[in-house]
């Protein structure tokens, strides 16, 4: 009797774990399943769980009606562009804040974070007007810039935290050994904080890939990435659930694959320092 209680508890926790996981995963599963149904079946009530026909028609139609591949390339350019340029800015910024802190460094960090607490829509009108007069609306550089600026605080914060983990002695040894700042960065700092740098980049790629607010507001056709492309299927002409699902599936599959491959790295980076 006595040993039954821990076993029961464990079973209950396992069940709870599965339930939460299924709950979180269900929308994605439903989207994928719906993308293989016909439009009629997709809106049928009560809904059928499994598609009766398993049709690929939605996918063909989505590709035909809109240039999926073009949007895919836009998403790639946006994610990689904002991440690479962002790292070029964030690494020196985090370096100086971690290793050459001034009296105001803490305030700067807090201020940067506070920009993420403001709803983005608060800045929409001025940003839109600036973009309009600068000719940046619906351009890749424009949308890359705004996504980059939006994610920069997170990148600097993450890198700052990882850099702080590196013992000051090691960097001082590096200076004694005659390394310039650049060599210190290349030979010691970046290799030592590689898990952190990698997860910062991965997280930023994912955030940029999924970014929907600015892409919807500032792009239309030419520079629209996949997140904007999905939205074009919920248009005033009517909702097409099956095609919307097919478009969504197409949009999330690449990032799901990246996330799947790199999940070990991502978890290691995000818990870096917590489990030393």
């Amino acid at each position, binding site marked *: 009797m006595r040993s039954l209680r821990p076993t029961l508890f464990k079973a209950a926790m396992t069940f709870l774990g599965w339930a939460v996981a299924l709950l979180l995963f269900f929308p994605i599963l439903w989207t994928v399943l719906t993308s293989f149904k016909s439009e009629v079946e997709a809106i049928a009530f009560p809904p059928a769980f499994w598609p009766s026909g398993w049709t690929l028609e939605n996918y063909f139609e989505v590709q035909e009606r809109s240039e999926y591949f073009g949007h895919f390339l836009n998403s790639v350019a946006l994610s990689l562009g904002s991440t690479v340029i962002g790292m070029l800015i964030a690494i020196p910024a985090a370096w100086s804040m971690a290793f050459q802190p001034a009296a105001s460094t803490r305030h700067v960090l807090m201020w940067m974070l506070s920009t993420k607490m403001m709803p983005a829509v608060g800045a929409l009108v001025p940003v839109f007007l600036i973009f309009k007069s600068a000719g940046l609306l619906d351009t890749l550089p424009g949308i890359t810039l705004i996504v980059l600026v939006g994610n920069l605080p997170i990148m600097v914060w993450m890198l700052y935290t990882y850099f702080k983990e590196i*013992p000051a*002695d*090691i960097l*001082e*040894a*590096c*200076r*004694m*050994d*005659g*390394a310039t700042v650049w*060599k210190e960065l290349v*030979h*010691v700092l970046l*290799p*030592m904080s590689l898990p952190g740098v990698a997860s910062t980049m991965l997280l930023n790629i994912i955030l940029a890939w999924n970014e929907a607010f600015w892409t919807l507001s500032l792009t239309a056709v030419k520079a629209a990435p996949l997140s904007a492309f999905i939205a074009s299927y919920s248009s005033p002409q009517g909702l097409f659930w099956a095609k919307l699902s097919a478009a969504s599936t197409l949009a999330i599959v690449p990032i799901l694959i990246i996330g799947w491959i790199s999940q070990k790295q991502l978890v290691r980076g995000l818990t870096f320092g917590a489990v030393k």
Partner: protein
Amino acid sequence: MGSIKLDGLKKAFGSQTVIPDANLEIADGEFVVFVGPSGCGKSTLLRLIAGLEEPTDGRILIDGRDVTHAAPARRKLAMVFQSYALYPHMSVYQNIAFPLKMAGEKADVIRVRVQEVATSLDLLPYLERRPRALSGGQRQRVAIGRAIIRQPAGFLFDEPLSNLDAALRVSMRTEISELHRRLRSTMIYVTHDQVEAMTMADRIAVMNAGRIEQFDTPLELYRRPANMFVAGFIGSPKMNFIEGARAREYDARTIGIRPEAIDWSIDSGKWRGRVERVEHLGAETVVHLSLDTADILTFRTPLDERLVAGRTIHVSPREDSIYRFDGEGRAIPGPKRNP
């Protein structure tokens, strides 16, 4: 090449002055130890010399060249850190080679030099290992290897042995002394352990609250301490300090008597006291005696069964080894005894 001169050196962190005014001249090839209690500013002074801290005031000269504002690498000094500060992602080989690589040395020159250094430090079998796969003593040797490979004008050690166990500490101490004999370059060695200081140093700078209290050879510090701080810091067990009437008898505010300069007897002597505690260390015995005043007197003596706690005995300081100090704690030179 390798003389170091500190000229009115001052360091403050914000409003806290850590080093008020340091003046020191270290000759080329000398082994100098900075010793003092924890927090007295030894590391800060060493880091000022290294160039890792910017002085608030004053000058640092190496071989007569003003390096006060020169970058660390330009000072031709190498440092061994307390934590070793090895690069964890590099092999032993890469760690030792790093300074040469930074100096832009050619790969084949580096290979030869690393082999030499690794041979002299018994590190050859470990060249491909990462630091984390080494023992404490081996890591220490890698840190030393990384320091000597550049053939610097001087070495700076910041408590390099404090992370090692007692036995290893003694053997590394010998190894570092050996290294100094072999290389003949200037070395500055920071420690809070006076035994390390006494056994290794040519000259010792005794520090207290950021000040260099005395800079002299180990024996001079022992024989002629400049003040009560140095007298109390050098020697183990600590020197006894006695005030009041007993000191006035010697025309001093305080007198100091080393535990090894006291004779005892059961029935006669200058002062009478009760044995409070007896520590048997084998070859010798350390006795703590309470005099009839509040003073506690510690002395060392060969083993004797008659010394037991609670017993009343007599002690006499050797008159020629009584140190006298004035009201400021400074040593009073001259004849020991009031005529």
